């Protein structure tokens, strides 16, 4: 599988640094599962993190810091977590989901427009993350829109295209404020995408405005 559309270096760096929001991070993780090029990039950025760590000035610790650590080494677990089994709700969406979604709830398909369905992806502990699956029938034209916050879209099945290119499974489209587009789903099959919206999409994003009355975010 050749992947032609990747996250920007800035996004991969923020993902590596742990400063990307939880929603976009799920979509980037889904992309990384299928993209060796970006995995190598993330490894490079982690090395960069290691180099920056090495270059940090020394911040004095409490005088008993090492003693405390040594005392705790033999305790059974550093942060005991109850072994509760949490069953994640996964409504069948008609394809195998990326493993980055395994710890999320995936809702049933709901109507969004003619030939257009969505499914809510809920991240435990991150109720304000805006992640969803979108499914459009073959040939569907999405509304033309611009962006005030970044939208991350990973193609899971089928394909779509806009003025900037054609997106196949494994491709990730990162659309920020510079992008005005009208995505169209290819005529040969339906298309399913994983999407995360960054920031306050209710107010700022065209796709958010489109989704808000129905989706609730």
């Amino acid at each position: 599988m050749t992947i032609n559309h990747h996250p920007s270096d800035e996004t991969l760096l923020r993902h590596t640094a742990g400063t990307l929001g939880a929603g976009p991070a799920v979509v980037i993780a889904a992309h990384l599962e299928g993209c060796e090029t970006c995995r190598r990039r993330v490894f490079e950025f982690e090395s960069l993190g290691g180099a920056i760590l090495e270059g940090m000035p020394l911040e004095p610790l409490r005088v008993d810091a090492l003693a405390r650590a040594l005392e705790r080494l033999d305790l059974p677990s550093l942060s005991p977590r109850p072994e509760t089994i949490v069953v994640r709700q996964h409504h069948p969406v008609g394809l195998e989901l990326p493993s980055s979604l395994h710890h999320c709830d995936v809702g049933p398909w709901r109507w969004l427009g003619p030939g257009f369905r969505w499914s809510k992806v809920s991240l435990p502990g991150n109720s304000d993350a805006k992640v969803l699956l979108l499914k459009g029938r073959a040939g569907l034209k999405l509304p033309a829109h611009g962006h005030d916050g970044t939208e991350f879209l990973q193609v899971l099945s089928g394909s779509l295209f806009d003025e900037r290119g054609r997106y196949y499974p494994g491709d990730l489209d990162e659309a920020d404020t510079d992008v005005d587009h009208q995505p169209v789903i290819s005529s040969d099959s339906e298309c399913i995408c994983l999407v995360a919206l960054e920031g306050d999409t209710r107010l700022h994003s065209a796709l958010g405005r489109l989704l808000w009355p129905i989706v609730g975010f």
Partner: protein
Amino acid sequence: MKPVEQQGTLPTPGELCQLMQAVAAAHDRSAFAALFGYFAPRVKAFLMRSGLSANMAEEVTQETMLAIWHKASYFDPSRAGVSTWIYAIARNQRIDRLRRERTHTVDPHLDPSDEPELPDSGEDVALVAEREAQVRTALAALSREQAAIVHLSFFAEKPHSEIARELGVPLGTVKSRIRLALNRLRALLGDET
């Protein structure tokens, strides 16, 4: 117990690797203490620079060092150097702590270190050592401003506004400055794409 001896100069990557392997294979407490001396003060500084208070940075540093002890057997020199591995653990501990602070309820499935391992890139120890060295050379070759941009991108939750403030550039040009800095980095690392 005497206070931590803070170590200003790190040993070679190979020596750090031996210390890690002593912890992994033999639960060698003196090797752990040596790693603690090298890394704990740096991890604390890194966490404070990322916005944690001194107290919380001290706690998360403790958790990071304990995680290093418990996860030592997962350290794989064919994936990353010691500093890089410790960086990743500190980052995960920080994310974990911030999530707990935000949500107040701990979901046992949220430990970032439990997230699925990405497939291996099939590198070996020599290639990893080469990458680690290349990254350091590249970082040193960046201009002052570009190095600052890379650092701030690592530390800041909202890097754009902090970069604008620290470098005194308009917010509108930050995005292109970041792109330039990361393109330069990519060129220095010899990546073609």
